[in-house]
């Protein structure tokens, strides 16, 4: 049967979310002949719709449904209603991401074994290894057209990168380059090469950066096996007396509650919405929420140890020109406890336009200390630090029953306390980032606090033992065999790399598993 599918068609796979996880899974399944209905809470925007304007784009794309925050993280103080900077649209946060596509390092799949016991951290080894994922990483790199892999050349460095490179080399750093990016350095896969426009976070108007919005989603639809329903906000996943899921209830674009039957459901709504949906789907049979016999749904929320360093020079940089994440220093990504923390971090160039710099350089700051920095905006260079943060059971997504969204559903509360390891790593990274810029003559540097989270991870984590996590090594929930998780919430630990490439690799691998098991009559 071809798309569109009937609400009562219980032979379809329902995928919730269309970003790097859900969008890829939906397409990969459709390519294999599986019937898929993808439900996307947001609207549909394509490159011609994207806007080179930070706030206007934010209004167009960002997920701004109500959420609440708690914990000692500064985001909770500065942006109490906006814990995460992610996208509500067909294509999800793959519209917003900067494109950095790094494989995990082999030891990062075994954080517990490698780092040993870390007090207060709920560390666990992944049930898969780097070797397991290698072939899937290669497929993901080819799909995304990642530079510096598969024979694809690197991107040229912009002004912001050239400053970083010079400073990093002066410090003796060796692994300094323009990154492995899902941004075309040459025309590839019907997408043009990067035109150095900037505004990577606002959606690439050239389509030079990979996003599922204009690759996997339309390609899946072209098979006739995929139907994407936008403005479809899933409220609840339903199950039968045997404890198997049978469909989902969602609010359609007119606000009417619909019920789509399903043979299998995959949840890929990002690490805040995915556990929220499982918790909001609690029933008499599953009073603590679906797939939550371990009690781990919503726990171990990770957001990467992040922060930025901006620096002012006595001459112009114009960091906003060209690729937003234009290059990387990888030397600190290693695990080396002599630095005073476990795990490692990457330093990647980043720039914000003037409007977002005003909002994020030092949220809440005012007066001449702040405005003199803004006066030097043209002379600024900047980098973002992204490192492995520690999973903690108490960092978690819970339902806030006191606050309801536009559908009357309890919203997610995002609680996060920094772990001492996160703080030690951030302080080290600030020092190194500032040293990089000092080495090229910075007159002033700014250790800038974390932005609302873009890397939301870990809240339905993968584990060998059903006691320790929510899903098995295929992203299949331990408790319910026809319920899968396909986004970054599967992550057992966060590693130091930007997560999208790993999310895509896991989704390709998961599609292969689902199609195989369905074909064998096991699902």
């Amino acid at each position, binding site marked *: 049967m071809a798309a569109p599918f009937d609400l009562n068609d219980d032979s379809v796979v329902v995928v919730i979310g269309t970003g790097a996880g859900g969008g890829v899974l939906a397409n990969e399944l459709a390519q294999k002949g599986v019937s898929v209905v993808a439900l996307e809470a947001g609207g549909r925007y394509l490159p011609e719709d994207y806007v080179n*304007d930070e706030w206007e784009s934010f209004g167009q794309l960002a997920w701004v449904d109500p959420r609440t925050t708690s914990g000692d993280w500064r985001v909770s103080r500065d942006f109490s209603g*906006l814990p995460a900077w992610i996208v509500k649209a067909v294509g999800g946060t793959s519209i917003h991401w900067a494109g950095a596509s790094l494989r995990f390092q082999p030891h990062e799949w075994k954080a517990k074994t490698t780092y040993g016991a870390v007090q207060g951290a709920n560390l666990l080894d992944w049930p898969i290894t780097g070797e397991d994922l290698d072939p899937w990483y290669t497929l993901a790199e080819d799909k995304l057209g990642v530079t510096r892999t598969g024979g694809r050349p690197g991107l040229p460095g912009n*002004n912001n990168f050239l400053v970083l490179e010079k400073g990093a080399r002066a410090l003796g750093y060796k692994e300094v380059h323009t990154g492995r990016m899902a941004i075309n350095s040459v025309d590839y896969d019907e997408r043009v090469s990067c035109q150095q426009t900037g505004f990577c976070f606002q959606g690439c108007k050239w389509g030079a950066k990979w996003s599922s919005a204009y690759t996997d989603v339309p390609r899946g639809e072209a098979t006739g096996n995929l139907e994407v329903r936008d403005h479809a906000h899933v409220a609840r996943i339903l199950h039968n007396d045997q404890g198997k899921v049978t469909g989902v209830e969602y609010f359609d674009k007119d606000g009417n509650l619909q019920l789509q039957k399903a043979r299998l459901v995959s949840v890929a709504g990002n690490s805040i919405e995915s556990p929220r949906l499982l918790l909001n789907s609690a029933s008499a049979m599953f009073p603590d929420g679906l797939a939550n016999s371990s009690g781990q749904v919503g726990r171990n929320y990770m957001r990467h140890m992040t922060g930025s360093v901006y620096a002012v020079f006595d001459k112009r940089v114009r960091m906003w*020109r*060209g690729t937003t994440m234009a290059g990387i220093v990888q030397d600190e990504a290693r695990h080396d406890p002599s630095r005073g923390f476990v795990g490692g971090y990457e330093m990647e160039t980043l720039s914000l336009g*003037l409007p977002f710099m005003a909002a994020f350089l030092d949220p809440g700051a*005012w007066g001449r200390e702040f405005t003199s920095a803004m006066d030097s*905006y043209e002379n600024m260079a900047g980098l973002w630090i992204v490192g492995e943060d520690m999973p903690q059971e108490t960092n978690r997504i819970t339902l806030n029953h006191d606050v309801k969204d536009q559908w009357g559903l309890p919203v997610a509360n995002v609680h996060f306390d920094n772990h001492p390891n996160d703080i030690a790593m951030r302080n080290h990274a600030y020092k190194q980032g500032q040293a990089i810029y000092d080495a090229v003559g910075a007159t002033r540097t700014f250790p800038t606090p974390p932005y609302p989270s873009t890397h939301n991870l870990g809240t339905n984590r993968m584990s060998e033992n059903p006691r320790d996590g929510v899903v098995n090594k295929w992203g299949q929930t331990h408790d319910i065999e026809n319920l899968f998780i396909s986004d970054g919430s599967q992550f057992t630990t966060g590693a130091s790399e930007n997560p999208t490439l790993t999310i895509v690799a896991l989704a390709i691998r998961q599609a292969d598993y689902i199609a195989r098991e369905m074909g064998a009559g096991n699902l």
Partner: protein
Amino acid sequence: MKNTKGPKGLTRRQLLARGSAMGAAFVVGSGFMAARDAAWATELTVLKPETFASLVQMARDIYPHDRIGDEYYVLAVKGYDTPDNAEDIEAGIEALNAAALGRGFASYLDIGWEADRVRILRSMEESPFFQKIRGGLVTGLYNQKAVWPLFGYEGASFEFGGYIDRGFNDINWL
């Protein structure tokens, strides 16, 4: 930007619409605030002229940029001149003036040195009034396209073909 309402409430489009609705009020010139020229007062719909002048001074004291004219600060706070905001703003400025009086000045606007005004603002920076004005300025001031060139920021580049042929790697001093 204290919550998600900030950015949504002040999009570029709304700012531009607001600017054009105000029309000739800004043509008066950058000195008009200090002069307290009655000409612009008629453009205010609700707020008292002294209140609005104090609000503009407060905006500049919060985010002082010496090369940016008053008209941008006026535009940034003009949105408070509405019936639903007036009570809060009048009360907030009254508190500001009371604090000035307590320090021996006739009013906030009467204080000659920025440092003296800033001391008053620091003493009330946790107040909802201060936070509302400061938070609103983050978008109200820095998201005005007309101020971007004053910081050297170039804004959108797609319509010019990006920077691939326009200096993305033109740094020459490294």
